[in-house]
């Protein structure tokens, strides 16, 4: 058996290498900071023959997703990537991918939304796509980006639901770190070729996503809703089998750190959740029983796993890098409260918004914030 190879790679490169090892057929792409380096890497790998795929440069993100939808309907394994306003511009076509039950996989490199312009990370862009019917992962390390893209293709093709893999702009996308590349034959064993149940085929003309009457439409919507919830065991299975094959583990629906005996639980996603592991260590040294619960899946929100993982009577400090406009706080806190209501009345939820537009979130700052929240 070949050994895994360790290289230095940015998060953006990790994403491009995962797409290459997933043997993707079609990549429609349009550049936007900080995602551009993924598309540059894809274009280069197709150009120099490293990847046997069709790269389709398009004139905007709406077209990028439209091309992805069309190529997926023709039976191809499809990948694209975007950020912030590019993702928002795709919004309408995201519904076509999920409603059409097309297993597109897309990376969104999280970035704050215009106006005013910002280049740096927050999570308003991906959370704003909550109701588009896409499964959403959020990743906290370069390695997790690589691992998750492969898991995402498997889950997407098993469920016929598109999957979005999110990670922070710059803090991950432009951060150079060691990356373990499993041997290609192991990846091929984990992710077999895409064999769609049907495809658009000029030799055998058919149409799809035609006009439906109310009862049919409602039935399609109910199926999508049910199948998104039913993807949770498949997400877990993908994480477990990826671990069995590669030895790597980033959590399944959730990731935890020093959680078992925790009285104070930090709850956050993406790179700040990695940094929070260091904040937890600082708080533990100060005698505070702190732990971390990081939802790796944002959608479907892993309600049962969160409910069973939280220790008795814990205070949960939700650190939101986004705003839930109209409510005093962030979106994750709102999701968490709706899950706990009537199920875990022993839990207290506190919430702060921080890190908007890429404000640096250091281990010391977040440890101090959590301490301050304990006294609120």
């Amino acid at each position, binding site marked *: 058996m070949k050994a895994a190879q360790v290289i230095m790679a940015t998060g953006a490169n990790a994403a491009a290498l995962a797409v290459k090892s997933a043997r993707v057929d079609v990549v429609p792409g349009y550049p936007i900071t900080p995602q551009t380096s993924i598309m540059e890497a894809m274009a280069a790998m197709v150009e120099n023959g490293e990847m046997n795929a069709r790269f389709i440069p398009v004139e905007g993100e709406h077209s990028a997703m439209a091309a992805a939808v069309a190529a997926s309907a023709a039976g191809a394994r499809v990948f694209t990537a975007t950020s912030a306003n590019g993702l928002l511009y795709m919004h309408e076509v995201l519904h076509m991918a999920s409603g059409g039950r097309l297993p597109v996989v897309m990376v969104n490199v999280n970035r704050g939304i215009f106006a005013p312009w910002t*280049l740096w990370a927050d999570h308003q862009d991906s959370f704003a796509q909550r109701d588009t019917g896409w499964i959403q992962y959020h990743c906290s390390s370069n390695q997790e980006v690589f691992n998750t893209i492969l898991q995402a293709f498997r889950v997407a093709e098993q469920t016929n639901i598109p999957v979005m893999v999110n990670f922070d702009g*710059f803090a991950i996308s*432009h951060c*150079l*770190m060691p990356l373990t590349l499993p041997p290609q034959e192991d990846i091929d064993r984990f992710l077999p070729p895409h064999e769609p149940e049907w495809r658009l085929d000029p030799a055998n003309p058919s149409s799809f996503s035609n006009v439906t009457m109310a009862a049919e439409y409602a039935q399609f919507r109910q199926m999508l809703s049910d199948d998104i919830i039913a993807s949770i065991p498949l997400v877990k299975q993908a994480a477990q089998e990826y671990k069995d094959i590669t030895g790597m583990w980033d959590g399944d629906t959730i990731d935890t750190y020093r959680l078992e005996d925790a009285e104070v639980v930090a709850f956050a996603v993406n790179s700040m959740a990695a940094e929070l592991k260091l904040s937890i260590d600082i708080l533990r040294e100060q005698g505070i029983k702190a732990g971390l619960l990081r939802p790796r899946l944002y959608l479907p929100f892993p309600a049962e796993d969160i409910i069973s993982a939280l220790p008795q009577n814990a205070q949960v400090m939700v650190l939101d890098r986004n705003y839930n406009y109209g409510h005093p706080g962030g979106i994750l806190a709102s999701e968490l409260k709706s899950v706990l209501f009537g199920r875990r009345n022993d839990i207290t939820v506190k919430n702060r918004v921080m890190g908007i537009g890429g404000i640096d979130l*250091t281990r010391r700052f977040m440890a101090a914030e959590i301490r301050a929240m304990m006294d609120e």
Partner: protein
Amino acid sequence: MLELRINGFGGQGSVTLAHLLAQAALENGEQGQALPFFGVERRGAPVRAAVRMSPTTIHAHSQCELPDYVVVMSEKLIGAAVSEGITAIGTVIINAPEAVAVDKHPTWHVDADAMAREAGLFSADGPNINIPLFGAVCRVLNIPQNIMEQTILNKWPGNNGERNLGAAGKAYNTVTQISL
């Protein structure tokens, strides 16, 4: 976990220096991380980059606010770089024509500018001071010289690598600690 911040001006090659250091950590059997701060880039504007090295997985993804080492790529930035944050006993490594000591901090000096010029290392922005600085920082961090050299040759196989080796090696062997 060792934390280091590079303070320089846009065009001086701080991103490449950060990448080389992270790569050298990996060559040296450790984990390495380079996290440059990307702004709205302008040549000549102050820039910074975070570098971390650790025997275990690095979870930090913030800029280095209180690093153990600060690399100052121009003597014009000494004051700003130190006041941006460094641990109480943190070490400063300075590229300057003459030796300068920073109050209360162990300070190392290297004339990277002269060494890059001498080796004929130039780009559109001027001498490639990041190459001798890489050698100097490796010496201060006790990264073996052969690891430093291998890192350069892996990045630039062939003649460019050889030319870079000369300047980096000279800096490695001549960077000096200023006595306080």
